[in-house]
């Protein structure tokens, strides 16, 4: 059995993060690993436009941490995941990406992985066996 590893870090706000390469964008974008988010990936509309993701009339209602509900546009894209292309479910936050805005990686994207967060060492490791 082969073990694969992706690495991230603890950012300046104390959040576990990991770079994600969305196919269609030049550079990876840093994403927050959010175990309170139960789909795959959230990106900003600005990036979805740059990556030329296909936008159809698809909606998902999302419960936010403050108890409010918001509707997100839903689409799909391809990311590089453990060195291979992987088609993923994407929710799109309308508007331009804030300067310090993070994408969010959710638990459905992590479902076949082991996640290790070491806050003391400020390290994040995501591994899977194939």
């Amino acid at each position: 059995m082969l073990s694969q590893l992706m690495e991230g870090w603890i950012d300046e706000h104390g959040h576990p993060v990991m770079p994600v390469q969305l196919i269609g964008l030049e550079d990876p974008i840093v994403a927050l690993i959010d175990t309170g988010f139960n789909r795959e990936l959230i990106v900003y509309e600005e990036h979805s436009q740059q990556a030329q993701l296909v936008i159809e009339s698809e909606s998902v209602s999302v419960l936010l941490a403050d108890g409010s509900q918001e509707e997100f546009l839903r689409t799909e894209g391809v990311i590089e995941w453990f060195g291979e292309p992987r088609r993923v479910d994407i929710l799109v936050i309308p508007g331009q990406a804030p300067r310090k805005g993070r994408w969010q990686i959710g638990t459905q994207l992590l479902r076949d992985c082991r996640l290790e967060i070491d806050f003391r060492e400020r390290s994040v490791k995501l591994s899977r066996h194939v």
Partner: protein
Amino acid sequence: MAEFKSKIDRQALREIADKGQAIYDRLVKEKGLEEKYFGLYIVINVDTGEYVLGKTILEASDLAKEKFPQSRRFHAQVGVPTYA
């Protein structure tokens, strides 16, 4: 740098979600959706009420695109709210 212009119609998204949620609630009440299919992913065509179920998000999405392409679609997981 070109000025960013949003192409997302939030009002349209809300309308799809409202219609989709109403159909979902009816399926729960009339067809026992959550008892039978808890945890599966559902995609609803909000204009016809047709729906598909899949074990994964992408499986449900593929089935929906096949069964009702070019439609307005509402996505959810049966019995599980989407949290962010």
